């Protein structure tokens, strides 16, 4: 009797173990659990839609590789540059001019007489609308990231040497702005990554993005720092990460349009540098295009027109996105 009981219990236990083994075989593995320790900036990236004061009114495909720069002229023609190419669109988005250059173009600006200034890595070349080269200026031994024409002068931002070169329109170097000089108390620009933008204000004043300081700074033509604004912050009121804003433009009323890499957002600040609202940015999870391991900065340049529209050059998709105020 006792032996039968032991055999019964043993059989029961054996069946139980077998049942567990079979259940384990057919068990669905648990899904990957969210790692609470993982680095995430999704929360900071999301922008409340109530903050967005612009609407995207147009988006057109440029279908050019490696787009890096955009500029507008007074006739609202759009100039873009990329891998060894310059293209001009008229207001109807028809190609007005299209010509090749000797090397990759990283920045572009237009002059009052229709001339096109192009930053080709370490030097500037000047073209007319037919693609005829009117000038090739001396090398700066650096890397030009932005150009702006103010009156009869051309200002070129050199991201590698962290200086701004001031030329006359014939290509003569007049002076250098922002060169580090301890004796004169000039700190120099802090440019941790190769993004260094310059723009002209409504009163023909020069502004530069000192990205490592998270500031936009105003300079006199001879290089004296006149004013600045900006602060580091993950919030909308400041500039996020190590070095932002990487691009900016100034509207005719003096408002600033800025673009930040990492959080991939275009924002609007008033003349005093106070945050006004957001032009564009991620409003839902996964609302960005770049690979997880690289800097998320699809916008490669910004421009504005006299009517206050904002033009964002999406270099990853070769698209020009146009925003107008709501």
């Amino acid at each position, binding site marked *: 009797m006792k032996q039968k009981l032991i055999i019964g219990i043993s059989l029961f236990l054996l069946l139980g173990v077998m049942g567990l083994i079979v259940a384990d075989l057919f068990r669905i593995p648990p899904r990957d659990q969210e790692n609470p320790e993982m680095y995430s900036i999704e929360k900071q990236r999301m922008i409340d839609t109530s903050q967005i004061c612009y609407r995207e009114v147009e988006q057109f495909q440029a279908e050019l590789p490696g787009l890096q720069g955009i500029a507008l002229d007074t006739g609202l023609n759009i100039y873009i540059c990329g891998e060894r190419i310059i293209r001009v669109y008229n207001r109807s988005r028809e190609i007005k001019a299209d010509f090749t250059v000797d090397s990759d173009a*990283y920045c572009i600006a237009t002059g009052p007489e229709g001339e096109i200034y192009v930053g080709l890595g370490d030097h500037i070349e000047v073209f007319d609308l037919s693609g005829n080269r009117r000038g090739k200026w001396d090398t700066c031994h650096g890397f030009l990231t932005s150009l702006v024409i103010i009156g009869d002068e051309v200002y070129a931002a050199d991201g590698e040497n962290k200086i701004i070169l001031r030329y006359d329109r014939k290509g003569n170097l007049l002076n250098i702005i922002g060169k580090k000089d301890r004796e004169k108390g000039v700190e120099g620009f802090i440019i941790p990554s190769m993004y260094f933008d310059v723009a002209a204000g409504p009163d023909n004043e020069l502004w530069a993005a000192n990205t490592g300081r998270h500031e936009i700074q105003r300079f006199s033509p001879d290089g004296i720092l006149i004013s600045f604004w900006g602060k580091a912050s993950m919030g909308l009121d400041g500039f996020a990460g190590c070095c932002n804003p990487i691009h900016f433009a100034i509207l005719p009323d003096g408002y600033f349009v800025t673009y930040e890499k990492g959080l991939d957002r275009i924002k609007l600040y008033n003349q005093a540098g106070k945050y006004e609202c957001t032009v564009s940015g991620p409003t839902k999870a996964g609302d960005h295009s770049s690979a997880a391991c690289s800097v*998320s900065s699809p916008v490669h340049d910004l421009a504005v027109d006299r009517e206050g529209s904002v033009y964002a050059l999406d270099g990853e998709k070769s698209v020009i996105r146009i925003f107008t105020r709501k």
Partner: protein
Amino acid sequence: MERNEKFNRRDFLHKGVRAGIGLSLAGIGVILAKRTMAGNTVWQLDSSKCVQCGRCATSCVRTPSAVKCVHVYDMCGYCDLCSGYLRPETRELNTAAENQLCPTSAIKRRFIEEPFFEYTIDEDLCIGCGKCVKGCGAFGNGSMQLQASHKLCVNCNECSIARVCPADAWSRVPLSQAYRLTGFGKTK
């Protein structure tokens, strides 16, 4: 029916057996060659494909993982507000533990000159989680990158991290090119 005298069954068998032996020898040769070549290769992570999922820290047969953060100083901006060192919403830019992104404090911050700081990795403390890599890539230049340290990697036949890597970033590379760091030199 006329038989084909030139290619009878015996010939067919002879030739078939010879071909079989030849193919087998060739196959063995290929396998041996592959194994010989494999002896000169090591597992490495392609940092351009890495998505910093965290599996390198947890799936390696070594504890802590043989995967470590490597700092490519050539690319580093020496930023005060280093997104690879500091948590995203840090207010104070200092070395306080609550501000540090690294769960093991493996990154050391050293002042160079205003406003530049140098960041070095203490390999003994690094667990290869990739948080700093993700932070650096999100805002900075991507100078922090994960790599298998060949001082620690035991070069398993089948790498347990490669098996679970969602980005297919692991592969065998020649021993002469044992590290796959990217992005030397700055470009726009």
